[in-house]
């Protein structure tokens, strides 16, 4: 500890240089923590098998429908507490520039599977009473200024009615307001309509739905229950594929880009650049101080102590800046990560970060430290 003053003095010998180096190390670890944090967060949810909601879609493709009759069979699976189903309507208001995410559903099931939506008992009975009813999320109501009692015309690019036309109209019977932490979900800003009415009125694909969402009693049984649900339809013409809600969301995300590759490439690029920068700073700083280090040796500091001084100096620089950078990344992930399902930087990422900082400190500190150790006092003092 008594050497700490020396290390401190060495670091602040050139303030601008030390601060700038620290800032670039901080930026690098901010990027590292942000990218790896988000990436690992995604991977963690991907592998998360303990989930209280299961999504079932057609094995062939999520866009292909399944018989609605599967619902009754799914109810018999042990552990299933409630089931919602939904079908994509693909609506728009007035023209295609104003898309509205309309889904046909069984409202009672939906309310049970997604308590986060906070659909009230009155809204459920109102939907039952009005076949052409629509239960809409607060955001969509606000966007188009719709109120309870409005009759809203909705266009669609897919669903032709029995009369051969595609002009649909729904009566807004209720506006629901989901829990704040669930507000980002597309379901919170959806426009829900009665499946029964819609199925009767549409011309094709009748008695089929696009997706089942099941709530189960014990999240740890998710894998087993998924397998049982899929077994119901195995070898039929409508085989299903069931996975946890998180897994389904993340696999959709993964189809967009090979996130792993991008993250790793960027992190490597950043770390390489950083290594170069820090190593350079350390070498430069040692070079300038050779006479001072020689004085230390003259005063009786052993060579190993001088070597350790330089090494510790680079260690303090790297570790301190890396910690601040990681801290900043934790804040950043908390703010922006929720949109991709990551809210904290996992401890393994932080651990590796600290490890990288140590390696960085050793690689950039060792050559100048060794040089300091081998210093010949007479030559150094003479400026040779």
């Amino acid at each position: 500890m008594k050497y700490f003053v020396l290390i401190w003095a060495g670091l602040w010998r050139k303030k601008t240089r030390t601060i700038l180096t620290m800032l670039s190390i901080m930026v690098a670890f901010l990027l590292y923590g942000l990218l790896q944090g988000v990436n690992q967060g995604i991977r963690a949810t991907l592998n998360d098998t303990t989930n209280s909601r299961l999504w079932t879609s057609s094995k062939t493709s999520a866009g292909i429908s399944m018989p609605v009759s599967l619902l009754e069979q799914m109810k018999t699976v042990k552990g299933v507490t409630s089931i919602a189903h939904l079908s994509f309507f693909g609506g728009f208001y007035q023209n295609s520039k104003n898309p509205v995410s309309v889904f046909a559903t069984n409202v009672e099931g939906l309310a049970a599977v997604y308590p986060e939506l906070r659909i009230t008992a009155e809204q459920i009975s109102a939907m039952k009473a009005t076949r052409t009813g629509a239960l809409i999320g607060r955001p969509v109501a606000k966007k188009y200024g719709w109120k309870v009692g409005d009759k809203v015309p909705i266009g669609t690019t897919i669903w032709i009615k029995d009369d051969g036309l595609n002009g649909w109209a729904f009566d807004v019977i209720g506006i629901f307001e989901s829990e704040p932490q669930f507000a980002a979900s597309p379901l919170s800003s959806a426009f829900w309509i009665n499946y029964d009415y819609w199925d009767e009125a549409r011309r094709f694909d009748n008695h089929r739905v696009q997706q089942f969402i099941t709530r189960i009693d014990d999240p740890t049984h998710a894998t087993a229950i998924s397998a049982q649900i899929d077994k119901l339809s195995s070898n039929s013409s409508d085989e299903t594929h069931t996975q946890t809600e998180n897994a389904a969301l993340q696999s959709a995300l993964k189809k967009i880009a090979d996130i792993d590759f991008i993250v790793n490439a960027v992190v490597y690029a950043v770390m390489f650049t950083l290594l170069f920068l820090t190593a350079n700073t350390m070498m430069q700083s040692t070079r300038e101080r050779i006479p001072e280090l020689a004085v230390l040796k003259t005063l009786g500091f052993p060579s190993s102590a001088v070597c350790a001084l330089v090494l510790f100096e680079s260690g303090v620089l790297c570790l301190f800046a890396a910690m601040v950078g990681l801290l900043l990344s934790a804040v950043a992930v908390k703010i922006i990560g929720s949109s991709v399902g990551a809210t904290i930087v996992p401890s393994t990422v932080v651990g590796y970060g600290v490890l990288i900082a140590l390696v960085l400190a050793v690689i950039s500190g060792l050559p100048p430290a060794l040089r300091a150790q081998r210093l010949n006092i007479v030559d150094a003092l003479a400026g040779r």
Partner: protein
Amino acid sequence: MSAISQIAAVSAMNVRSLPQRLGTSSVVVIGIAGVVAVLISVLAMSAGFIRTLQKTGPESRAIVVGTGASTELVSVLSKDSVSLIADSSGIAKGANGQPLASAETVLIVNLNKRNGDEASAPVRGFTDISFAVHPEIKLTQGRLFKRGLTQIIVGKSAQRLYRGIDVGSQIKLQDSIWTVVGAFESNGSARESELIADEQTLNSAFHRGSGASSVWVVLDPAGGFQPFKDAITSNPRLQVEASTEKDFETNQSDQINRILSLVAYVLGGIMAIGAIFGALNTMYSAVSVRSREIATLRAIGFGPVPVVISVLLEALLLALMGGLIGALIAWGLFNGLSVDSVGGGFGGQLIFELAVTPELVAIGFLWACGIGMIGGLFPAMRAARLPVATALRAA
């Protein structure tokens, strides 16, 4: 001595002494190279996506989808609409006098990539006339599917990406087994990411009725797009919209283009901040190492402006070198690299090659110059303000 010759003299002196400061100077170069490489690589993804969607056939074509449909996947056209569209004016005629109008169903099926990941592959239905509408589609392997049979041909890129769809293999889609009988190429267009089967067989296997998702037409070369569009929109029995192939495909890339640009600029921006710190560090030390020389110059009559400009020029030179190296890295590693993505409106997995275009290289150099300027400005000002007497006395 004029200002310009002063600037030239000091700058030349700086540049000549660069090799002595190789270590510190390379911090700027490598830092900026990293920023530029990341920026260009991510933008190259977007550019490659757009380029693939904009590869079209030899003829000028138009596509008709249901009103409001942004992609073929969410468009449904009834059988009546399909024949009304095919009978419209403005469509070129084929060899036997038939209008060159191809009704196609597009749907998505799950396939596994060769690495095991799940992916969404588009499957398209073709009728006999379709190949005349898309003459750029050519078989490279095997043969065509036979009408009425569950046979399928696969695009060149799709074949490379997915496992289990080599010619001769069988895949289960919905309730039927499909045999892969051939592979095709299509001038590098988006079709190469798709699988193509007989339209009617596809519709019945997937219970899709007798309609289609879209109608592709070859435009009558005499009139072009407008007469056809007018004919389609003026027909009161049709609720559809027509766009040229180019416009339609460009719209498909809007969303992914926006996402990738955001990623590129956010990542590049954060990295650039780091690189600016690195550049500042280097240039400050370059100035401090030379404070005696600078003071000497000032003492013999050089003005502060040439000193500032010479430091800035040095930073810019290093930045340009960094930009060049970064662009070369991006080009060498990623140009032509095949990747895939569900691209916004495209719906299915689009397979495309990263494209490092001249515009992207220009953007990279612009960023490099920006970083170099900021990193050089403050040290340059310090150099100019250097108190001459103190600097001369310093060891």
